[in-house]
């Protein structure tokens, strides 16, 4: 187990999130995909900090990023609840009143 394993799994997780963001239509699943991307970045930070450099900065960044992710989910879920009340659907392909 070395840096390349963790690097690879971080990139794979990020790509899964990216693909999910692009392909899925449900707002909640899109939000989960974004969270997956953020957590993949966390893994990369820890891997870089553990294997490439002997400083713990990267591991501390993870806590900051987790906090930001939590704040983002809080705002995001509030927006999604308000969205559901207006449109009665969470399918982004059906929410298209703005065009041009």
């Amino acid at each position, binding site marked *: 187990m070395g840096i390349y394993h963790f690097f690879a799994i971080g990139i794979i997780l990020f790509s899964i999130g990216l693909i999910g963001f692009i392909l899925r239509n449900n707002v909640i699943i899109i939000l989960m995909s974004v969270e997956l991307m953020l957590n993949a970045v966390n893994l990369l930070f820890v891997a*870089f900090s553990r294997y490439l450099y002997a400083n713990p900065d990267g591991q501390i960044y993870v806590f900051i990023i987790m906090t930001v992710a939590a704040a983002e989910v809080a705002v995001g879920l509030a927006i999604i609840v308000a969205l559901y009340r207006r*449109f009665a659907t969470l399918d982004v392909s059906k929410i298209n009143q*703005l065009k041009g």
Partner: protein
Amino acid sequence: MNFIAPNVNIISVMPEILLLLSGTALLFFRNCAGQGKAIPGIASAAIILQGLMIPTLWGNNIAGFNSLIVRDNFSILFQTMVGATALLAVAFSHYYLKQRKVSEGEYYALILYAVVGMNVMIAGRDLLVIFLGMEILSLSLYVLVGFFRDINESMEATVKYFLLGAFSSALFLLGIAFFFGALGATGIDNVTTAIEQSGFNIMLLMMAAALLCTGLGFKIASVPFHMWAPDTYEGAPISVASLLSVAPKIAAFAVLLRIVLAVSPATSQVTSYTIIAMAVASMIIGNITALRQTGLIRMLAYSGIAQVGFMLIGLLSPEQEGGPALMFYLSMYILMNMGAFGVAIVFSMVEGKRLLINDLSGIAAHRPFLSLAMSIFMISLAGIPPTAGFFAKFYIFKTAIEAGYLWIVVVAVIMTVVSLYYYFRVIMVMYMSEASDKLSTVSGDVTVIAVLLGVLAFATILFGIMPGSIIGIISKALAFM
């Protein structure tokens, strides 16, 4: 591993503390203060006060939090620009919100928090601090865009903005991770020392630069990351759209300028190719798409995308004249774009629904002053002398030619000619069409906003006649970089 007690130096974040305190106070007292001018008054007082505090730090390079935040002249100038924009947005909001029954406390508190986020972004010297600033800004703006949650368009706009904003944050964060992987630290200045010792992983640094540009590309709404902008501007309250179309771009350009300045010696090709691609695509797609817009706000959104394309040209030669030219363009962009949105707010007060360009037909007969101001802003956005927009474009093009990017300037000039059509259509409609009854009577007291628009229009002409003073200040600010 050695633990260093942080050298906080609270002076360095005093303006932000002030904004946070007054924002939180607005949240608490939103019901106590009598409805009316009190809440926007407090908000503008806070912004003015922090705007007065910032210049006192001029020339001192005050550092805080172990130099994670440095208030050099560069950041002071950008923060002043953000403050001015936010102040205009507060004034516009006051008129926009008057028609609608909303609790204003949260609204203005969120604007103040957004200014805090932008200030942190601009002053941050560490990518993680910049990321935190970006999130403070974005989270406030997500809520502001969807502030009227009983309007379908507003909710749709905020969902689009939120999802793409969160996505761009993730890309930016991946860029930070690669940056950390390449250098073992996230300070922007670390690149310079690493280059001297040639102790960095070039592949990771290149990917980091490209990803950071992508993440910021979403914030400045440049093609191909612009999809959210027209929908969000149109669905958002127009007062929020005015803030959204100018202020985050200023902060993001400050960060882009810093990052490009730092990494371009190491990764010159990748960063300049990324920027060229973004600039050319924004100019072409923004201008061409703006041609067939019927909605005024939507047209302004695509015009904003096109303007970003012009600004990005300044990033191609940041260490020479490109930086000052970009800053000049941004400061003139505040005047003309906020002005155009301000006029749109006055007109939208009548109807309350989507404002079409054709709704303005014949308005000049009833509102000669507003039409004249709008014409000045449109002429300036099109880049015709003697307005500020002309010199903004002129300086940008000059730096690009000096840096040897002649073909980009040719594209830019052609696109400027294309843009004349949609900017002048607004003027044509206002002055030469038959009057429609839809907008002929603008109700309500619009004194303050009219005075502000007059000042903006006057400044647009003034800096078009003598741009030298602003250029002088900007060059002085960048001399330290």
